[in-house]
């Protein structure tokens, strides 16, 4: 069986409200799951719990059949999380920022890695900004630098929280294309977005909150 991620009866209270009520789903290799819901319905909360950077009041999350608390190291190695905050250093340029992500995911610093990074940036039409500190980039350009990780880190599970924020049309198409390739290579994607999403050749499952 190819079941990668399993979320069992996750329940979260916020104040006096039941935000997430017995949420459960499974995500297998080759699947895309879009979590949908109005503003404030708990999408971000759920995604953070899945990644292990948020607390649930009840319920559990399993990765490859094991609870993520005991299996954190393996999950971390196979996960790519892109949240509301992109994790990009304003003082560093795109290449330096991506070098860090490469290093964190175990890629040696080398000219080969640098070439990969440059290709990824070219792919996102950021070649001419590759040496500019990221704080000078526009909102959409910063988001693109963060998205370049999709090309560099080899993770099975992508958890993307509104990855399309501030992207223009070309950026949107790029993300859809990446998702479709990732899934056809056997990866899994868990995402939220308020924009209409069209991933070629894949049915996007949805989970309504």
């Amino acid at each position, binding site marked *: 069986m190819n079941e990668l991620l399993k979320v069992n009866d996750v329940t979260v209270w916020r104040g006096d409200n039941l935000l997430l009520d017995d949420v459960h789903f499974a995500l297998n290799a080759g699947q895309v799951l879009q979590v949908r819901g109005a503003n404030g319905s708990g999408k971000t909360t759920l995604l953070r719990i899945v990644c292990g950077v948020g607390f649930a009041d009840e319920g559990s999350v399993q990765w490859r059949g094991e609870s993520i608390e005991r299996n954190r190291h393996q999950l971390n190695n196979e996960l790519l999380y892109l949240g509301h*905050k*992109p994790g990009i250093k304003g003082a560093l340029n795109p290449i330096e920022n991506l070098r860090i992500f490469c290093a*964190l995911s175990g890629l040696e610093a080398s000219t080969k890695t640098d070439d990969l990074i440059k290709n990824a940036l070219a792919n996102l039409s950021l070649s001419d900004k590759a040496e500019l500190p990221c704080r000078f980039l526009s909102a959409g350009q910063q988001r693109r630098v963060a998205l370049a990780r999709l090309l560099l880190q080899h993770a099975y599970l992508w958890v993307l929280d509104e990855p399309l924020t501030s992207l223009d049309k070309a950026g949107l198409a790029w993300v859809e294309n990446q998702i479709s390739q990732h899934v056809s290579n056997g990866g899994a994607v868990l995402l939220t977005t308020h924009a209409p999403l069209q991933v070629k050749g894949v049915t996007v499952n949805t989970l309504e909150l």
Partner: protein
Amino acid sequence: MRCIFQREWSVAMRNPGQWVNPLLFFIVVVTLFPLGVGPSPQTLSTIAPGVLWVSALLAVLLSLGALFDADYSDGTLEQLALSGQSLPVIVLAKVLVHWLLSGMPLLLMSPVLGLLLNLPSQAIPVLMVSLLLGTLSLSLIGAIGAALTVGLNQAGVLLSLLVLPLSVPVLIFGSSAVAAAAGDFAASGQLLALLALLILALSLAPLMASLALRNGVSGGT
């Protein structure tokens, strides 16, 4: 480790303020003291060891406030916590870079400031050795405080509050080592004590700080 170290180094080099400023702060505070206390060379040389050490402590600890804050607010900390690398090692690399850029320049500048405060010149080597051992320990201790207060507003001052009590032993041994040397006594006992504190801090601080960090990240929204 090497790579994390390089990363920190390159971030820091982009921000020359990070290493120039603690040094300037040290200089400025040391200058303020004579202005507050009065210019009598007699009084100054009595309180010189204390003033130098208290200022060094403040300079190191205050510049530590930003150790994890930038990483927290831009989301890097989440990514570090989610990476396959060991968090204590990452913390250690950050602290070492911080020390190289803030503790080390203090160390190199301290002889001049000692002279400004009329510190007898035979105490200068002890001053430097004590600052070497002490500022390293302080950086490690400060990292625990910075990790505990990550993501809180006004963390800077709260941090000092958490960290200052922990750093009192360092201050006491450090300044009394210098005072002993200034009075022509042996200071080896105090220096050994500083060394012991450093070893303790080296073995405990990265672990404690990384625990605190993991917790700070999950608390965020």
